[in-house]
């Protein structure tokens, strides 16, 4: 028995020392039970790209992921915000339970620098999540992100415009967000390992999970 475990460790490429070994293939609860139910593994897929397609900002797109971000920050992993469109507001982040000492805001002068930074962060094995905003990201760039996320077992979140839905995606998960009177409608456009497509309505705009 002992032998077989050792053999497994040797061949799986998983270092028994690495604290993040347990993060491999992990799914992090979203904080919204209705959504968790629909996602394979019961939450956000770590070590993969999640694409979030939104038409406008301020509809609750960060609240959708903030519970998971807070969780990752409390595990002592970096949350890297690459070139955010506005200031991530510290008082609100702490309000959601995010450990601010784990937040990194990275500015790149060009798209290339931003992509480089995101990839470095994902690969570093020190990040919980890396957030990016982009109007256009081609399949090749997304594939690179996906590889980096797998390598560093981190969660890559990319906010894109709804037009991105026309392109094929290597991402593990692709969601489309639309605000409604009743709350945020989260439509699953693609989800690896699951055929289900459909929409979930989550809490009112100001609901704290």
């Amino acid at each position, binding site marked *: 028995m002992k032998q077989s475990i050792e053999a497994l460790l040797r061949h799986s490429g998983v*270092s028994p*020392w*690495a*604290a993040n070994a347990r993060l491999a293939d992990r799914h992090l609860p979203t904080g919204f039970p209705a959504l968790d139910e629909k996602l394979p593994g019961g939450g956000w897929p770590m070590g993969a790209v999640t694409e979030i397609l939104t*038409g*406008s*900002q*301020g*509809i*609750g*797109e*960060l*609240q959708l992921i*903030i519970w998971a971000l807070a969780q990752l920050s409390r595990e*002592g992993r*970096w949350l890297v915000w690459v070139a*955010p*469109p*506005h*200031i*991530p*507001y*510290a*008082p*609100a*982040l*702490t*309000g*959601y339970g995010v*450990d*601010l*000492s784990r*937040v*990194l*805001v*990275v*500015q*790149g*002068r060009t798209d290339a*620098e931003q992509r*480089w*930074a995101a990839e*470095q*962060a994902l690969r*570093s*094995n*020190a*990040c919980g999540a890396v957030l990016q905003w982009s109007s256009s990201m081609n399949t090749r760039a997304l594939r690179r992100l996906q590889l980096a996320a797998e390598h560093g077992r981190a969660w890559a979140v990319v906010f894109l415009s709804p037009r991105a839905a026309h392109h094929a995606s290597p991402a593990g998960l692709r969601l489309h967000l*639309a*605000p*409604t*009177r009743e709350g*945020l409608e989260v439509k699953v456009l693609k989800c690896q390992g699951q055929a289900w497509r459909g929409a979930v309505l989550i809490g009112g*705009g*100001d609901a704290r999970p």
Partner: protein
Amino acid sequence: MSAPAIAARQLWLGVYLPHFPLETLSRGGALPGPVVVVDDRRSRAHVVTASEAARIEGVQAGMALSSALTLIPSLQVLKRDEIGEGAALDGLAAWAGQFTSLVSLMVGQGLLLEVKGSVRLFRGIDSLLEQVRNGLQALGYTARMAIAPSPLGAWWLAQLNTQPRIVMILDRAALAKQLDPVPLELMALPKTAAAMAQGMGLKCFGDCCRLPRQGLARRLGTELVRLLDRALDRYPDPRIPYSPPPVFERCLPLPALVWDMEGLVFAARRLLLELVGFLQARAAGVLCLDITLMHGNAKYTGIALELSVATRDLHHLLDLLRMRLERVRLPGAVDAVRCTARHIVPLDAPPPGAALFRAIETPKERDYLLVERLRVRLGAGAVQGLCTVADHRPERAWRYAALEKPKPSFVSPLPRPLWLLEQPRMLKQMNERLQIGGALELTAGPERIESGWWDGEGVARDYFVARNPDGTRLWIFRERDHPQRWFLHGLFA
């Protein structure tokens, strides 16, 4: 795996550097052809050291330069730099401080290390010697080494040793036999005594020991008898320990002009290895490091490496340097590389030999590895943390923060948006309704924020949560002095 018992009181490692004058000039790069170092202060320039390629062709130390040039017309000739040698030996001694606290200089030729106390720390004498040998090789030095219970014994045996293998005499009883063949020239006797000894037909250490002590003392002086006793560990032979300066500043000349990255990294690696040894010796890490590339004519390119946490990890430092070098445009070829540690701080010491476990970085190290990589490429200001500030004014309730220390956080009991706008944006109004992508509807508020009158940047505002037809939720305010002016300040993303 039981280590041999060491009976001796002290154990000295003699590190003799047979090609030191050449290597101090050439170890910054690769010199393929035959090379010699010459001393031209005397009327006839003579060869001090010859490279292996030159020795194969028959060039030897002590030979006149003209004869050497006859043997190899294409011979490359370097001028001896004794000041540089002195600095290089100091640097090497500081590096060797990681192995023992007692390092003694043998000027111009090598080092003596007292290693008895270090044997256990390095998990056995073999492992210790292995690390010294590999370390010297990585620095670019050829060494001949011997271990003996007396410093003189270790030094002489190291000089006699022609093999890379280390001569090991761990026992005083075996010392006399081993020292027997040491020639008189190596023993560095005073001139008159040396001449007299030669006249008596003495050729080696053993010859001296076989004569009656009293007679020897009478004819060649008590000094000689003392020397024999010291070499045989029968009389104390204290050595002055080298104490390195608290700063690290080393310059490595390059034997040929270098343009390319790999050449620069090669030289920098040797300097950084010295730095790492220096830091290891004082259980310290470096926070701030200057690498200066010299172009001759007092021109240079400076590269400052600023680290978030102190380190003495060679791979990490090299990695950062490489990234910086990729982005530097050199104004000319480089003829020397200088390395200055500007800020050295104490660091908890990992056990010696920790290099074996390099793959396991502590989470903290891994964290800052990322931050440094990003900073090196994007600039220090491009990577920031966040913190809250105890201020009621929304634009002052946060700021960018240094990453090193966690700050206390403040939580507001009232709703705060996840996005804050860089600057409040004035809202349009149409038919007395606020407009952003349609008419706004107020869903919460007002929250009165009135603060800051004392610093001249006071605010007096009423904040509301609003919602537009798209479903976007906005944080807006109205100035109390101008109730008709509305501004957008944040987004409930």
